[in-house]
């Protein structure tokens, strides 16, 4: 039975986490994601879970690291400055191959910035973020339903690859309410984690570490990690395609912006302009091949983001020479309107004499 309820995006993530069998949350308050810890502080104890309001985001991520090492499904959530403070811990998690969900309800920066919606943390999320040669798995929901679904998916991918996973969203997705189909709650049976630390009863003692000092050891470790990231790239890229069959231009946009682009597409159709859209759902792995293949047929791409051009770089790397690439971005809390997006698209088409 599927139950449909009206939910705020932040709550949908929290509910998704519980549905995925996450029973541990460690976090420190910051707007615009406070609904997540507030909801979990009331709900986790009811399902035998643990909620701790940590003393800082540094402590939060290290509690996540510990609970993950102990074999549990565990999460934290934060925004802007808090996510920055977690980067060292996330690097250790990647290095010691520990799963866990980190939710980033982005706020504008640099610095304290403000709580307005933005996509300014794209680089931090998708390029590692902390020190060393690693990647997080990054999922970008565009609806409250996806806040729920991708929270579950994030735990699955994170466990499957023993790698930290991040949900990258913004205050619009976190605060807006939409109907969500919740899967019927059933007991989740999690796969055994033979690498977890629980005392060494009946087996040899084992350890988790990131320090490799002897000759070539760290390089071998990094190459193993690379092999894992390549497998993730190969197997897990997700996107939504819209109107790609008969369009003159393709917009690439993720999260909140993709919703606005959909309105622009409808407006354009009325004027006889056919716009398609590729919406990356996974930002790492980036769905490069669909963008490459689409651009071969429709060599006009417009990237729209709420930043000064971050995903733009991944799109550039995905396409071959000869593709016309445009960009429209609104940083610092500015939200692009459908009219603005359509205007930019028309300018680009006009330049080509369309």
């Amino acid at each position, binding site marked *: 039975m599927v139950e449909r309820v009206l939910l705020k995006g932040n709550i949908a993530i929290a509910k998704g986490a519980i549905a995925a069998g996450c029973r*541990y949350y*460690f976090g420190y308050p910051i707007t615009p994601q406070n609904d997540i810890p507030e909801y979990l502080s009331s709900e986790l104890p009811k399902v035998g879970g*643990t909620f*701790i309001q*940590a*003393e*800082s985001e*540094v*402590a*939060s991520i*290290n*509690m*996540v*690291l*510990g*609970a*993950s*090492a*102990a*074999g*549990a499904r*565990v999460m934290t959530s934060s925004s802007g400055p808090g996510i920055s403070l977690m980067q*060292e*811990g996330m690097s*250790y998690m990647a290095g*010691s191959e520990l799963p866990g969900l980190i939710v980033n309800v982005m706020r504008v920066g640099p610095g304290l910035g403000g709580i307005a919606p933005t996509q300014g943390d794209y680089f931090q999320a998708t390029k590692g973020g902390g020190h060393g040669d690693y990647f997080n798995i990054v999922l970008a929901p565009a609806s409250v339903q996806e806040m729920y679904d991708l929270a579950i998916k994030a735990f699955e991918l994170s466990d499957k690859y023993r790698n930290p996973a991040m949900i990258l969203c913004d205050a619009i997705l976190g605060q807006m309410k939409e109907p969500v189909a919740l899967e019927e709650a059933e007991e989740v049976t999690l796969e055994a984690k033979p690498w977890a*630390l*629980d*005392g*060494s*009863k*009946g087996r040899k*003692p*084992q*350890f*988790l*570490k*990131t*320090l490799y000092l002897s000759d070539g050891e760290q390089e071998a470790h990094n190459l193993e990690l690379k092999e894992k990231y390549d497998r993730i790239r190969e197997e897990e890229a997700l996107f939504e395609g819209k109107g790609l069959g008969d369009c003159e231009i393709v917009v690439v946009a993720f999260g909140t912006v993709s919703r606005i682009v959909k309105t622009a597409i409808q407006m354009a159709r009325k004027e006889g302009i056919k716009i398609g859209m590729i919406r990356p759902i996974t930002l790492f792995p980036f769905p490069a091949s669909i963008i490459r293949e689409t651009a071969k047929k429709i060599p006009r791409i417009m990237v729209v983001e709420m930043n000064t051009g971050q995903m733009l770089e991944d799109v550039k790397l995905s396409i071959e020479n000869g593709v016309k690439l445009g960009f429209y971005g609104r940083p610092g809390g500015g939200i692009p309107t459908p009219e603005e997006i359509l205007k930019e698209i028309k300018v680009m088409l006009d330049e080509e004499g369309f």
Partner: protein
Amino acid sequence: MKKVFSRPKSLVDCQTHFCPGCTHGTAHRLVAEAIDHFGVQEETIGVCGVGCAVFMYDYFAIDAIEAPHGRAPAVATGIKRVHPKKVVFTYQGDGDLASIGTSEIIHTANRGESITVIFINNTVYGMTGGQMAPTTLLGQKTTTTPYGRNSSNDGYPIRMAEMLAPLEGVAYSTRVSMHNAKEVLKAKKAVKKAFEMQIAGMGLSFVELLSACPTNWRVKPLEGQKRVEQEMIPYFPLGVFKERKEKNLNS
């Protein structure tokens, strides 16, 4: 013949990387003896800080994890909350616990996590080559206090065992030394007591062990032990600063 001395089961039979006169090895042994004493080798998870003791997982025959520098108490919190019945301890140096990790130790103590914290005070950053630690004594020369630690520039050596004792979540806080056999025996009792407190679920137990770092102090191994006795103990008095007899029943 009766066997009177042997390697604790919880220690791996190997050579350590510790320098001559360093007391990390002694502290390792005391921890392993306590684990053996309570028969919890297969129930114990160790969390090492970053410092000279980062190779704990090579030396202890128990499950172990390396925490980011200073964050061992937060990592231990995560582990203990998932496995409340297991024995969890951190092993941290003075840079790790009393400088970069002050926030984590204070709040972990304040939450009363039932973990044991083994704190090695050697008045110096060993692993990174002998820089000033928060515990460096006034006047002590280190590679970053070449003229001696000066309170007007560097503040004062910090006394962690005293500082943590008043926190409600702390069940046991003590300072011991390892500079001679008699003191090592006292230290052994303290470490055992700390694990006993944890097993009884009393709250956080904290043992500060005064330790020698002859290499970075630029002295001979024996002189190192003398320095602990003559210079460290007068500033870092030995003793029990807190010992709770009953569980905290506050909800």
